[in-house]
């Protein structure tokens, strides 16, 4: 049944062999970025490991283990777990609307003992898994069939709906973007894509009118004219720009940032952590960071296009795009190019769920890399 002897040999890899197959260069890159993030958390705390840096370090180490474990698990196992994971994430998402508590004006957390879980973060990875699983068996023509397309859109739309009512606009956007990107990659016909883009263009004004919350509208309005209310809602944008801009070419130096450390930046340790980076390391440091991110993304695309099964490809590309959307939205937001939506900078921002899901995502990507030679029949449902 298997056409290549090499592949047959790979199927019997031991865990140790798999760990050797892991792309350690990518892991090193991720570690480098995360270390930069921990250094920033140390800095915004005024040169203290408390309350954020140490905690973030431990989360990153846990994340590394998760990455390693996920990488060694056969990609077909992940394929089998795709739908159950999606179902669990969706249930948690519904639960958060019922039982979650308000944080920062939005209902996003669910308390699991000592851990505050953010189901919307889980959903991003679960959706990528489930869609990759669903689209794995679909040929280019089949993807564009209304029934298949309808099912896929429902898989995207239902969690998106629960996230948007939390309300969490940023995550909703990422979920929808992830899902649509996978459909696009699976070969969705331009006959669908073109009218869909046109429909979005017309839907935006309607969404403004009926869907967006007042605070979301305020954010947009504030974004358009931040100086109009410089001490109120425009505060974030104005102060973020001052922080980044004041870094200049080479920055003020590590621990010498004043903007974020002195609380001019709200949520300095989470969504706005990049501003501190820009302030302390300047243009040179910021561009270097962007290059590191770009190399990670390059690895992701390379892994995706090298995989031999559609599920692996879609999974790898979905994870890569998800990572990219984080960087894009957060980057544009803190630099004042788009309104403020609550999206952290991956690997840099303080936050447990985000760190763990990002590392889990990289684990899945690495699993694809490790099992890149594995071929999965079109109608296979995995190996569990």
């Amino acid at each position: 049944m298997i056409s290549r002897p090499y592949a047959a040999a790979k199927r019997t890899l031991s865990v140790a062999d798999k760990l050797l197959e892991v792309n350690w260069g990518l892991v090193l890159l991720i570690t480098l970025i995360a270390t930069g993030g921990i250094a920033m958390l140390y800095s915004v705390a005024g040169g203290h490991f408390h309350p954020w840096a140490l905690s973030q370090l431990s989360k990153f180490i846990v994340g590394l283990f998760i990455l390693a474990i996920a990488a060694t698990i056969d990609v077909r196992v992940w394929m089998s777990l795709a739908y159950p994971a999606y179902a669990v994430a969706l249930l948690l998402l519904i639960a958060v609307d019922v039982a979650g508590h308000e944080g920062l004006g939005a209902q996003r957390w669910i308390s699991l003992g000592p851990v505050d879980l953010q189901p919307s973060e889980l959903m991003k990875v679960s959706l990528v898994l489930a869609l990759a699983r669903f689209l794995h068996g679909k040929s280019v023509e089949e993807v564009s069939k209304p029934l298949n397309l309808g099912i896929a859109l429902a898989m995207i739309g239902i969690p998106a709906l629960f996230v948007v009512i939390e309300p969490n606009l940023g995550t909703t956007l990422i979920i929808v973007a992830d899902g649509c990107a996978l459909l696009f990659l699976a070969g969705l016909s331009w006959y669908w894509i073109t009218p869909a883009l046109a429909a979005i263009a017309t839907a935006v004004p309607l969404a403004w009118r009926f869907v967006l919350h007042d605070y979301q509208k305020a954010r947009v309005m504030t974004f358009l004219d931040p100086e109009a209310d410089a001490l109120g809602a425009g505060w974030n944008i104005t102060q973020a720009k001052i922080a980044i801009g004041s870094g200049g070419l080479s920055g003020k130096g590590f621990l010498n940032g004043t903007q974020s450390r002195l609380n001019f930046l709200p949520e300095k340790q989470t969504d706005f952590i990049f501003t501190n980076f820009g302030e302390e390391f300047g243009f040179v440091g910021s561009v270097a960071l962007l290059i590191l991110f770009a190399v990670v993304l390059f690895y992701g695309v390379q892994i995706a296009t090298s995989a031999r099964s559609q599920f692996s490809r879609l999974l790898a590309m979905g994870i890569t795009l998800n990572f990219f959307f984080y960087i894009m939205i957060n980057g544009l937001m803190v630099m004042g190019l788009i309104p403020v939506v609550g999206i952290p900078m991956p690997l840099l921002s303080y936050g447990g769920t985000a760190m763990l899901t990002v590392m889990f995502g990289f684990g899945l990507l690495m699993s694809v890399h490790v099992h890149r030679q594995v071929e999965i029949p079109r109608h296979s449902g995995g190996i569990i």
Partner: protein
Amino acid sequence: MPLFDKKDKSRYATFTRRSLGLGGGMALVFGILAGRLYQLQIRDGDQYMTEAEDNRINERLLAPPRGRIFDRFGVELANNRRNYRVLLVAEQATEGVAEALETIGKVIALTDAQKKRVLTTLAQNKKFVPVPVAENLSWEEFSRINMHLPYLPGVQPDVGETRDYPFNDELVHILGYVAQVSPGDKKGDEDALLDIPGYRIGKKGIERQYDEVLRGKAGASRVEVNAYGRVIRELGHEPGVPGQDIWLTIDHDVQQFVSKRLGGESAACIVTDVATGDIIAMASTPGYDPNLFNIGISPDQWRDLTTSDHKPLLDKVMSGVYPPGSTFKPVVALAAVEAGLATPDYRVSCNGAMTLGNHTFHCWKKGGHGTLDLEGGLKNSCDVFFYETARRLGIDKIQEVALKLGMGAPTGIELPGEKSGFIPSRAWKQKRYGVAWQQGDTLSCGIGQGYVTATPLQMALEVSRIASGRSINPRLVHMVGGELTRRETAPPLDLSEQGLARVREGMNQVTNVPGGTAYAFRIAEPGFEMAGKTGTAQVRAYSQEEHLRGVTKDSALDWKLRDHGLFIAFAPVATPKYACACIVEHGAVGHPQVLMARDVLLYTQKRDPLGMPAAYPIKAAALMGGSVR
């Protein structure tokens, strides 16, 4: 079943193609991010750097203690006392400033006007600047605020300093007062102190004249603050320079006596040291409490001050301009001696009136004085004597001597707002009115009426110069900080000693020889005798009919229409030491001004501040003893 069927290959091609397309999109987004970083950090970097600095550093100005004002013996005339006050920081008032004021209003009394003023001040200042809500609180009120502090976000209790004038209205026209900075005060004054909410600057008197000396230099505390304006740490502390103290020539003891003696009259009185021109006391009554302007004056109080016919806000000493009346006669007498007219044989005959052209000039004494010499003219204050003398002298000779005695020009006293009286001349009238000087004008001026005017301060200078024979100038400020003000021994007047002696003798006869116009008010105690000259300044012209009826002495006349009573004097007669000028507005009846001057001179001589050891503290006493006395 083939794993890689045709369909799968086409899927793979599509996937790769589209992946690379998305990869290109990612590259584009990264390009945008890098471009934006360039824009923020390189292109606009400097501007944002400035804004970041502004954010971080707050310069908190610290008001230095204001310099105190002392009298010549070290009595504190203006000092600083503790000021319990409540400040409000807008950005810390989490429930809004209006609500914060409401809450404060429940703890201590706040009027609506106060609240409105605070809101205005808050709006004018940056959000982190503490603005005073209420000042000069009692300890009890202050404790209440402190007790309720947990419920008053943004409220800061503070112990500051405020100006205090312990003697209230006694010295108000000398000291002036401090009050809140008005927008007009900031024009042309860049001192950062003025930006401190609640800061007071000198508005009148010494407080204004020496404001910059008294202020000192603003201290500053450079603090690093967070976004809530809360201080993280102090980066630098510049303590500032305390204001310098000022020592006046005033003897508070005499000042207090004078002030009390003038009482409720609309009056002014100056006591000088004739040798130096130092002002020992200087009062204009009624005064007002300068503390009112510091603490805040109510509309009612302000209306009372501005509408009173006794003009409490006016410093009559240097800003009141009056016809000197007969107190000008010594000037004319001196001019007559200087001109060689009034020789010892010079006589003028008075029969009660003098006719010039078709106008009759009356003497105050209906029957006339008979034949008088110079001293007799002064003793009797004979109008006809001075009409005739002035007529023969001509106005220009009188002006010359008047100017030498310090009239006709501001005396240069160290106070703002001094006015000057006026001494006319022929040329002036020609130039001013285009009309030739008339002899009738000279006659009016000869008795201190007509165009002649003077401030009580100028009259005091006149009599001081006559008494000492020196061209002294009035001086009020003895020492600024540790530095003595410039002080030179005044040169003798450019007038003959003979003339001065004769005028002094004439003034001696006014008070000390029976028949003198002020003989009834003389100082009888041996060694303290004064010499003086009475005067009356007409408030309005009288008709001849009124003159004949004697209405000018009518105490039934409306107060406002009565003449002003004037008196200049020096004492003791033999060796003049102190001079005094006194005016009581509308006080011609009963000569209250003469009584006041007499009491003041007697009191001053008995206390003798000039003779008291170590009159001025520090090195001043020694210095004065050497160079002046």
